[in-house]
């Protein structure tokens, strides 16, 4: 690639990638649970993405591509390797759990402080945490999440269902513990 092509490519990359910085950092922090690690993760993500930008297919989802690089970078980090060893309660391939009709007693949202909710999210296994955050915070579609996480859409749905259920249960326990 000649110098001008490289500069043009880098310029396009900057225009596409820089607006995602805040989102990538937030997600990285949730994954790594540590500011310095999150900064390193994002820095490394941008470096890898710039290097591999020529392999990015125009017209496909750039945001999902960037999150995928970030997630892979995390999984290869020491924290990521450690987090990946935490077993999930149920197999990914199970169909999404049937939703329960929740009674008013189980509806904790009004009594749940944001801090408790954040604590509960942070304690989720990383496989649940990432799918939940990509869905609720990044508002990705199931297909986008499947691309970012490199898993089938069906697995996205079942993980998301379990993540929500696990989070609700965790919040219920935290609220119960904190109640007088």
């Amino acid at each position: 690639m000649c110098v001008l092509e490289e500069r043009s490519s880098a310029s396009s990359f900057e225009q596409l990638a820089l607006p995602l910085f805040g989102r990538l950092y937030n997600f990285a922090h949730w994954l790594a649970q540590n500011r310095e690690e999150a900064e390193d993760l994002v820095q490394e993500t941008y470096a890898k993405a710039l290097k591999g930008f020529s392999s990015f297919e125009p017209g496909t989802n750039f945001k999902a591509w960037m999150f995928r690089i970030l997630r892979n970078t995390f999984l290869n980090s020491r924290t990521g390797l450690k987090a990946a060893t935490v077993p999930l309660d149920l197999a990914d391939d199970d169909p999404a759990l049937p939703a329960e009709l929740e009674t008013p007693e189980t509806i904790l949202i009004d009594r749940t402080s944001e801090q408790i909710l954040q604590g509960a999210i942070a304690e989720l296994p990383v496989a649940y945490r990432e799918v939940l955050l990509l869905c609720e915070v990044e508002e990705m579609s199931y297909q986008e999440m499947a691309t970012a996480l490199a898993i089938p859409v069906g697995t996205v749905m079942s993980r998301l269902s379990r993540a929500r259920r696990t989070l609700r249960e965790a919040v219920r326990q935290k609220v119960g513990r904190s109640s007088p």
Partner: protein
Amino acid sequence: MTEDRTEKTTHERWTGQLDAYLDGELDSSQMQELDGHLRECSGCTAEALRRLQWKRAIRSAGQCYVADPAVRERIRKSITPAKAAWWQWRPALAATAALLLVLAGARIIQLETVSPKRQLAQEGWMAGELADLHVATLASANPVDVVSSDRHSVKPWFAGKIPFSFNLPELQGSQFELVGGRVSYLEQSPGAQLLFRVRKHQISVFIFQAKALPLDFASAGEMDARSFHLECWQRDGLQYFAISDAAPEDLRALRDLLGK
């Protein structure tokens, strides 16, 4: 008992779709179907609202980490294509400068050694241009913009319209009659075109700044251009062209008159 079970099964079917509904993942027909059910079922509607609240709470709680602006700036710098320092372009600049020098030198040599053949070709081309201008003037319903036989009217008319002044002698007593004048252009240079009459012939005299023309017509003398006679001369830095179907002697006589 059977009715209760059926109702529970129905609710399970709908609530099982609520998350996908709120995530915007149902297709349009499923969305419409569930919309219809929610309008009729207060229990499912309440459950949908609770889940929506839950989604919003997670969204709000999940957006909590903000990076140090310095990190963003560091990353921005790392991915922004660096502007090449001038010295990085030095080989290219040197090559370009060398090429320009060669081209400039070649052009200078070319200008100084215009071949006689090329000179003749250019003279022929310009003579043709002048003939065209002369014919166009004669064919025009208004051949001149200032109509006057009075040199004291015609000469001042050009003031401010062309970048030079010229001498226009008294013609009284000569065979020539001044018809008028107009501004003309040759090689993108403005000049004066004077129209004279001698007997039944019309003569155009073009006056341009000699330095504005690409060729030196100082020694061109008489030429022929498309059956027209062309007389060329220079005076006070001005290039004169007289063109007409009149006899060459007439043109020479006018030249002598204007050259006084």
